[in-house]
Structures are given as structure tokens and as C-alpha cells.
């Protein structure tokens, strides 16, 4: 069974470590905050100028001056700090964020990522995504493995304009957890009930499959 959005978030959350500063992109990545493992503390960085993003506000707490990068109203967690956009991207570009989670349209075996533009269709801009992929060492891309029509999004070469070149090492799809190294995809884990054959079929780029591919586990 392909992972649900919630399961994708849950699996990413297993990669969190105590004391991590984390930037979560819009969409599925945002959900990761709901699955921080017990006994672990992370601080969320929002690139519009907040380190220590808290939960959504109650109706009474809503403050127009306090939003996240998705322009949603948020709160601050204890020990939060506020800063301007130059400082925020100094953190990001300077590699101070421990983990970045973001979505994509396509990734390829060279670690390239396309996530911001579909020529002639979707031209809204890259926002902070190009800075995030260029600045972070540790990035997890979350996406569906293939389109609704069964077209793979894990490619030998991205077809859409790139957001970043050679910067992606880990991809979590609804079917598999994959590492990118030395110009190949490497299958690390498969979604519960998903066969290796299914993954191979829906992966266009070269995929290295070890003898044993463990299923993801959700405690």
C-alpha cells in the first residue's frame, strides 16, 4: 500500500534527532511537526524569519504579524527568535539548518531537483526553495513516486527547470525510501505491502536494489 500523507510525514519524522533545527516546506513536510518522536526536541525554522515555530494559534491567539513561510498564522515555541530575511537565509545558505524537508515534481540520479516551475503552466516562483536546496547538507525530498498516470518522477534526468543541481541525497516517496549516490538511486526501504517490483517499474532512473529491502515500520 502506498503511504498516506500522514505516513510520509511519520517516516520523515523518524529521521529527526534531538536538538535538530529543521526547515519544513509547504504541504506534506509541514505535517512532520505532528510526529516528532517522544523524548526528542526539534526547533522549526520558518524562512520568513522565525526560529522556534509553534503550533497554529487558537482563535484568540491569532496575530497577523506572526505567520510562517506558507503565510499561515502560527505561534512561537519557547526559546524562539525572530530575525529578518537576510539573517534567515544566512542560516539556510550557511548550512546551519540540520534538516530540510521539501516537496518536488521530479528528482534524478544526479541529485538534481525540479520543484518550482512547469513552463507554460505553473510559474509562481521558487520562493526560498532554491536557497534551501543549495544551502542544506541534509535534505529529504517527499513526493509521490509517480504521477496518477504512472509516469515516474524518479528520473535519469529531470525534464523540468531545476531548483537545484546535485544537492539531493534522500527521497521519500509514497512507495520507497531512496538514497541517491554515485549517479544512481539506491533502494533503502519500501512502503509496507509494496513490492520491490512495483518500485522498479515506477522508477525511471537507474535503481540499485539490495538483496533485502526492509519494509518501513511505523511504531
Amino acid at each position, binding site marked *: 500500500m502506498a503511504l498516506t500523507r500522514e505516513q510520509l510525514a511519520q517516516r520523515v519524522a523518524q529521521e529527526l534527532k534531538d536538538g535538530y533545527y529543521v526547515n519544513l516546506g509547504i504541504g506534506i513536510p509541514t505535517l512532520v511537526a505532528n510526529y516528532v518522536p517522544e523524548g526528542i526536541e526539534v526547533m522549526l525554522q*520558518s*524562512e*520568513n*524569519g*522565525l526560529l522556534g515555530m509553534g*503550533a*497554529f*494559534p*487558537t*482563535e484568540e491567539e*491569532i*496575530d*497577523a*504579524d*506572526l*505567520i*510562517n513561510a*506558507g*503565510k*499561515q*498564522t*502560527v505561534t512561537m515555541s519557547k526559546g524562539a527568535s*525572530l*530575525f*529578518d*530575511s*537576510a539573517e*534567515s*537565509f544566512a542560516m*539556510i*545558505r550557511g548550512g546551519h539548518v540540520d534538516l530540510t524537508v521539501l516537496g518536488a515534481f521530479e528528482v534524478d540520479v544526479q541529485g*538534481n531537483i525540479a520543484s518550482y*516551475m512547469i513552463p507554460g503552466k505553473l*510559474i*509562481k*516562483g*521558487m*520562493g*526560498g*526553495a*532554491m*536557497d534551501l536546496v*543549495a*544551502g542544506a547538507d541534509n535534505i529529504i525530498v517527499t513526493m509521490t513516486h509517480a504521477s496518477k498516470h504512472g509516469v515516474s518522477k524518479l528520473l535519469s534526468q529531470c525534464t523540468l*527547470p*531545476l*531548483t*537545484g*543541481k*546535485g544537492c539531493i541525497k534522500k527521497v521519500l516517496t509514497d512507495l520507497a525510501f531512496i538514497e541517491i549516490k554515485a549517479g544512481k538511486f539506491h533502494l533503502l526501504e519500501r512502503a509496507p505491502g509494496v513490492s520491490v517490483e512495483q518500485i522498479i517499474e515506477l522508477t525511471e532512473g537507474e535503481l540499485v536494489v539490495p538483496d533485502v529491502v526492509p519494509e518501513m515500520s511505523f511504531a
Partner: protein
Amino acid sequence: MAGFDKVVTTYEQAMAGLTDNMTVLAGGFGLCGIPEGLIAQIKKMQTKGLTVVSNNCGVDDFGLGLLLPDRQIKKIIASYVGENAEFERQMMSGELDVELTPQGTLAEKMRAGGAGIPAFFTATGYGTPVAEGKEERQFNGKNYILEEAITGEFAIVKAWKADRYGNLVYRHTARNFNPMAATAGKITVAEVEEIVEPGELDPNEIHTPGIYVNRVIKGNFEKRIEQRTVRQK
């Protein structure tokens, strides 16, 4: 106005000198921390041919989006321009020139403009459409592209408090691009929620020193929220 007193009382004074074809840097992230009254004044003045530098371009009926229907903006340099139907129409038809710039690069370009740094290298955008026509270079085996600074004839920013000398303090994430825009305008105008006397702001806590600010006006802000998101108690 004498000495360092930068307070003006009308929006006409605040935006005096803005003429067609100028470059205007605007603070704000989405609709958060935008100089609402200064934008409204630009609409009123019907200044045309503007190049606007701002992370976003407002929405259809608020923020910088207000300058679109009368085609006041010739070109916009922004990182994200969704949520605006008229914007999309003008962009697709070629009436509006859009230069998409990564958010961090945009912030750094404005900071550089204010700080006398004409250009800097960044890894952001390397190997992407953003890098087209730009110099590429390796440092310590990593690839970077050269990005140039941005300055403008005007900068319009929104702050929480100002003193009469133009020292500014921002609140929460309404800070965003405002401090950098403030440094990079030849004339910088700050629209603020509250004006206090010099000495009332703690010198340690001033975000934008008054040296960057030419005019200060007290505004009334709607502070529209784009994504009102709440949790249950």
C-alpha cells in the same frame, strides 16, 4: 522637519519625489509587514513604469496587487508571485516583466545594495534557470554564481515603532524584508504603527538605525491575513 526629525504627516509628503520609471523596494512577506498606506499613495499618484522589488506582489485587491490594474508596474523582481489572477494575466501576456529571484538571494541583494557590496557569490540557483547569463565559479570545490546588488530610488517599509529620528523596531515576522529594503533606498520611507520620542526605544534593540530612514509616517493598518489557520483549544 529640522535636524533629525523625520516625521511627516501626509502621505503626499511621504512619497514626494516618486516619479515614473523609478525603482521601488518594498518590505513585506505576503501581506505581512507591508506599508499599506504608502502603497495606496502610489496608487493614488498613478505613478507609471515602476520597477518594484518585493518578495511578493500582494493579492488581487490588496498590497502591491493594487498597482496592477492601472498597469503602474512595468517590472517586478520577486521570489513568489502566486495568488494573484491579474498578476498572472499580465505576466502571461507579456505586459508585466517578471524577474524571479530566489528568496534568500533577493534578501541578500537588497542587503548588499545598502551595504555597498556590488556583487556576491552564492550557491543558490547554480545549475538552474536563475544562473543563466551569470558568472559561475568554484570555491573549495563547490559551485557558485555571481549575483549583483539591488538598490532603488525609493524604499517603502513597514515597522512597528519608530522614534522621530527614524530608528525602527519591527514586530515578529512582520520584520522580514523590511530592514534590508530600508538600507537600499535612496529615499527610504517608513510607515509605522506608533511614533515615539527619541530616547524611548532601547538603543540595544533598534533593528534599523535612523541613518537609513528619510521619512516616517504613522499609518493605520488593516493587516489582512492570507491563511488564517487555527487549532482547537
